[in-house]
């Protein structure tokens, strides 16, 4: 069976860019997978997420070669309405993608565009207001919410349409850790319960560690590692020039230099160390 996301030899050059933003990137991601997309600034994380939805090159001009398939569709040639039935993206600047006058209308907007029946729409909007902790803001203007609230709303707007592919670009940058956990919990629940594929691009690798079971490590537009999270963090720790690993993986690498697999959460670390009575991870 074809994986939901199949990228083969994807190269993206922005006009005037000295080097490609993405350079011969290939990977696949299947249903139910939560993949962390990590790497230093400029690694190509945002470009990759935008290319998966065709934003690059359709809205952001670029020279694109190689192949991208999402549920068998080519995002470069598929109509926006058809793509929207399959995939949703939350950009790293949430206020730019909020357009409605109330939180409730904002949540209903995507469903309306997909032609959802009104009764079903009301039910799903109410359910998402609760799940995202936004019920108290239902009649507020999205532009008047705090940065963290806007980010939660933007993620909720993507989740409410129940996409098969959910792309999150820095979804927790404006959130305190508790809200960050809440957002990533909602996103990974979509993978667990509905079998969605979730790609999370973030700098907050400490927080990501509790959610992503697989990592795509990018650097200079290339895939440096594509592996189970513990093995990928071991590769990262072995290559100091790539990026900084989560604090716990970094410490574990100093405790056991050269380990082929590294823990990145408290629960993983206590098991890895053979300490039985570890506290809960969070």
């Amino acid at each position, binding site marked *: 069976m074809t994986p939901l996301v199949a990228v083969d030899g994807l190269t993206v050059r922005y006009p005037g860019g000295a080097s490609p933003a993405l350079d011969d990137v290939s990977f696949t991601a299947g249903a139910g997978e939560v993949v962390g997309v990590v790497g230093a600034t400029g690694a190509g994380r945002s470009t990759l997420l935008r290319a998966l939805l065709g934003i690059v090159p359709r809205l952001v001009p670029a020279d694109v070669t190689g192949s991208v398939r999402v549920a068998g569709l080519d995002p470069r040639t598929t109509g926006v309405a058809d793509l929207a039935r399959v995939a949703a993206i939350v950009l790293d600047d949430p206020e730019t993608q909020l357009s409605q006058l109330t939180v409730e209308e904002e949540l209903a907007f995507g469903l309306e565009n997909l032609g959802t029946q009104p009764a079903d729409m009301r039910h799903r909007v109410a359910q998402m207001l609760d799940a995202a902790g936004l019920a108290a803001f239902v009649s507020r203007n999205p532009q008047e919410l705090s940065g963290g609230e806007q980010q939660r709303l933007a993620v909720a707007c993507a989740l409410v349409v129940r996409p098969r592919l959910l792309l999150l670009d820095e979804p927790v940058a404006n959130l305190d850790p508790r*809200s960050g956990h809440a957002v990533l919990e909602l996103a990974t629940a979509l993978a667990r319960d509905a079998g969605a594929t979730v790609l999370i691009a973030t700098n907050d690798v400490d927080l990501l560690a509790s959610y992503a079971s697989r990592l795509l490590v990018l650097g200079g537009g290339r895939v440096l590692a594509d592996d189970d999270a513990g093995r990928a963090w071991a590769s990262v720790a072995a290559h100091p020039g790539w990026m*900084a690993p989560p604090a716990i993986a970094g410490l574990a690498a100093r405790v056991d230099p050269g380990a082929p697999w590294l823990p990145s959460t408290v629960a993983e670390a*206590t098991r890895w160390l*053979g300490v039985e009575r570890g506290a809960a991870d969070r």
Partner: protein
Amino acid sequence: MTARVELRGVSYTYPGAPRPAVAAVSASVDAGEVLAVVGESGSGKSTLARLIAGLLRPDAGSVRLGGTDLRGLRPRDVAGRAGIVFQHPNHQLLTSSVRDELALGPRNLGLDADAVAARVAGTARAFRLAGVLDEHPYRLALPVRRRVAVAAIVAMRPPVLVLDEPTAGLDAAEIADLVAWIRVASGGTGPDADPSASAAAPMPLSVIVVTHDLRFAGSIADRLLVLRGGSVAAHGSASALLADVDALAAAGLEPPPLVRLAEALRIDPALGVAGTGDAIVDAVRARRGSG
């Protein structure tokens, strides 16, 4: 000696809000000191930052900068004493080039053209922006845009610098960079060797950092002010408070990762605050395989 920043019983309620956003907060920051203000969303962190920068006026209590109550100052005079960098750089980038952005503050402070040019050049060097001086700020990637926003405020050499969530969207190396120059700035030599720097404002800086990133707070702050529901939940040494798992939990905060690990392994949580020394590595090795 008077503290550079002194808050006495500061309270503020937004118009129409049912309860105060900041309630009876007292704290002080000396020259050369870094204070991290932490707390969960809605705890009043950003409101306190705006009160310190004179953008909001307290309903009760007082904010004193260098011994002067802000109530007696015109906005322009506050700008010379305290600079604030907002969470979203887009909210404070106003001009069409990085050069103009860096020049705007010094020009508004009344510096002459040569002094403005010197400030722009020195600040651009310190913040590695010399290569993008003619770019439009909105064409830059978020981390660079954020660096421009910070640099534009530092260019005014305010004795008090307030940073609201400066690490949002930055990667680990960029955060380390930020930590390095905040250390230099608060340590007395300033982020660059530009001689015009010290003429306008006495170094070292007092830095107030509003952040939800306790790992970052541990790497930069001398002292910590923990807010909960607008009130002070704890105030004291950053290294002691960040290892105090119960105090942090009471304020709805998650301790930094290595403090949580130290707690789970029942080793001294203080070893997890900085987490860079050999002591924690030795302590973890010693716990290996023990049940």
